[in-house]
């Protein structure tokens, strides 16, 4: 349609009306899809891992399922494809890496509960304990708006009960549900989210992700250049260093860990706790007071719940094995995974 001079106003206004109509429809579509049609749209990292897990369980229907839960350190340190001979034998437990970026005890608690409710339900779980996280007054998943979006509608009350500012937590979460430009944060492939809005399951297969089929996320090759290590370590240091004088296990960390242990006890799931390797650079950051606090707390938990504890912190002390003092590089992963799995398999004896 050719527009003559003088008709621009009406033509432009007509375009504007159509634009607003299409935009309104798109927003409505987005809102329905993300809030009601696609259950885990807001937590695709969890959904990816769970879907891979379901596929592994389907391949090994008779094997007992053992989940290793935790944060990015579990995600990157445990490359189970290296030990398939040990975990895919008849009657051997199916061990799966359920590490999720940034997952502290609260996040592990929420994810474990989802798995128990919707499957697959594990027979044994390993819960990662990261000393410095124990001090956090509240989970990152309650404080950071980009992480809060992961909460499901039926979980938000629980999120608020763990939050030190429930009103903030609720309002930020509600805002995320009405704002299509809200950012998700933390390593989420955008195309995953985009493709999920198109109701064609075939397209979902085109999704790209960063996990292998056993839940491992690829790590930098070794040896990592020293300047890269130093830079990454400084970032880790800034992020993880607590105020040594005020270090104490927070009420919310304790509540989350006890929540996991109570849940497992009720569901008859075996649990073990573990601490992952740390370089000497990182362990040097802990003061005696911090070490004593963490030790006495974990001793208390062990005696209250009679759970075993695997302390792997000193397994690989050399910074050579790390990218930043607490995430292993390729060489570190190669050394750590078989040793860890061997130790875990002892639980079945």
């Amino acid at each position, binding site marked *: *349609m050719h527009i003559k001079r003088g008709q621009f106003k009406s033509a432009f206004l*007509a375009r504007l009306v159509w634009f607003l109509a299409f*935009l309104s429809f798109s927003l409505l579509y987005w809102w329905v899809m993300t809030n009601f049609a696609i259950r885990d749209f807001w937590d695709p990292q969890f959904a990816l891992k769970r879907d891979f897990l379901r596929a592994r369980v389907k391949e090994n229907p008779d094997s007992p399922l053992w989940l290793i839960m935790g944060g990015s350190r579990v995600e990157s340190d445990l490359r189970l494809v290296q030990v398939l001979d040990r975990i895919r034998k008849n009657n051997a437990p199916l061990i799966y890496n359920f590490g999720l970026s940034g997952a502290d005890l609260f996040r592990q608690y929420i994810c474990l509960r989802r798995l128990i409710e919707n499957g697959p339900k594990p027979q044994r779980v390993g819960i990662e304990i990261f000393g410095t996280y124990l001090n956090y007054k509240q989970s990152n998943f309650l404080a950071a708006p980009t992480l809060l979006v992961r909460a499901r509608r039926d979980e938000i009350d629980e999120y608020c009960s763990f939050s030190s500012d429930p009103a903030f937590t609720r309002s930020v979460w509600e805002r995320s549900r009405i704002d299509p430009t809200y950012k998700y944060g933390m390593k989420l492939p955008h195309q995953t989210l985009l493709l999920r809005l198109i109701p064609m399951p075939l397209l979902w297969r085109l999704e790209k992700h960063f996990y292998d089929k056993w839940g491992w996320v690829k790590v930098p090759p070794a040896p990592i250049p020293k300047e*890269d290590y130093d830079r990454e370590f400084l970032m880790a240091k800034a992020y993880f260093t607590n105020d040594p004088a005020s270090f104490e296990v927070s009420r919310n960390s304790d509540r989350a860990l006890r929540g996991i242990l109570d849940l497992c006890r009720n569901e008859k799931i075996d649990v073990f706790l573990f601490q992952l390797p740390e370089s000497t650079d990182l362990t040097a950051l802990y003061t005696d007071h911090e070490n004593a606090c963490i030790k006495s707390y974990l001793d208390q938990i062990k005696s209250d719940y009679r759970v075993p504890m695997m302390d792997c912190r000193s397994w690989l002390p050399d910074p050579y094995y790390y990218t930043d003092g607490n995430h292993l590089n390729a060489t570190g992963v190669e050394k750590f995974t078989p040793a860890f799995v061997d130790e875990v398999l002892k639980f079945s004896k």
Partner: protein
Amino acid sequence: MGFLGCLLTGRISADLIAPVLFNSVQFLIFFAVVFAAYWSVRIHWLRTLLLLVASYYFYMSWNAKLAAVVATSSLMDYFIARTIESSTGEWQRRRLLGMSIVMNLGLLFYFKYTNFFLESLGQLLGRLGMEHHMPFLEVILPIGISFYTFEAISYTVDVYHRHAEAEKNPLHFLLFITFFPRMVAGPIIRARNFLPQLKRNKRFSWARFDLGVQYVLMGLFKKMAIADRMSNLVDPVYQSPGQYSSWAVWVAAVAYSLQVYGDFSGYSDIALGTAHMLGFKLPENFNMPYMSRNIAEFWRRWHISLSTWLRDYVFIPMGGSRGTLVRTMFTLMMTFALCGLWHGARWTFVAWGAVQGVMMVAHRLFLGWCKVRPKVREMLETKLGTTLRILATYWACVLSFVIFRSQDFQRMKLMFHAMFHFQEGMEVRYPVSSDSLIFTFVLVAISHLVVEFDLWKKITPRLTPLEWGLAYTVIIILAFMMASESQKTFIYFQF
């Protein structure tokens, strides 16, 4: 908080005060207020004043103190140009011109290059085994300084050569330097094109407003859906090239060619669009550069306002193509080395400029070689020859951008090593994977072809309002959904 979140919840916080980033809600609010005020005022001089206040507010929202530096140097240029025009003595005119150039380049040098040269001198002395304690100046680089400095210089040079009249109205001159749509990253405008527009009283035009909206939407899309998205493939690899596989490094190199194009041409589009909405026409800064058949054409399509500035105020005054071949080559090399240095205080920029110069010289020599070989020329003019030339030019740009993007020569070496020797390592998989490069590459290629073959001009007049509305919606949605997680500043802000 998300973009719409701010609007939906009406939460106007302190961070809404700074409108410097075009792709922010702050700028949207800022521009809406300026636009409404500008067109509701009928008095011409009041409109000019309003734009001037808005432009200074725009700059001061980033750094108030440095806005004073811009104002002072602009006023100095204003008075110098007036004096040049009224002076009759050639020697005095030349002295005043020199004063203006020294002042402008002095400011540019002080803010942008002092630490760079001190550091380089320190390194040189260190290599020679001499003790040195080079001072480090705590200076903030005023955004856009490279752009408005060149504009001020071109203005006084034009007045000196009597190619332009000295502006009598100081408000007009100050607005010429600080006009906010193009203040921080160009395009570099010329006084003789812009000042006459300021003098004309304007009437609101729906056609122009519509054109402006299209420019802005296209610019936002380029910035958010192309540049910011590609930066996810680029930034981690350029930070630690040694950790990534050869494939990831090639992906990053190609992605950067798309990122820098999307970023800068996106900014230029938004600048042109907002200017159109206010009734001003700024020069086009990009014209499908990756369709260039040779490097000389690339520079006629890429950052056009800079390349024409360098041609008019550096290359031609230095002799241009008038002298011997050797002299021309020397002038070309110097011009492009300066072009590299203009981009930033880093030796990799200078090296990139030098490589551009070498490619320009090589192209000239090749042209001369082809002149006496008509069969080769005919072959190159065929469709296949043209396609191959376009591809060769594009890949030359991709490789030279590796120098441009690398923080230092060490990383540049690692990049080239990984590109030309098989290297195992990590892949970039989040938040986007290399697949998104293919999608973006195809998108940019199609857009280049559509415009190059004038399909755009054939298609758009036939579109109905419904189709326009749909196109706007798709652009907006894709831009916001494909946008990066963190709002990224424009690359050319640093220049």
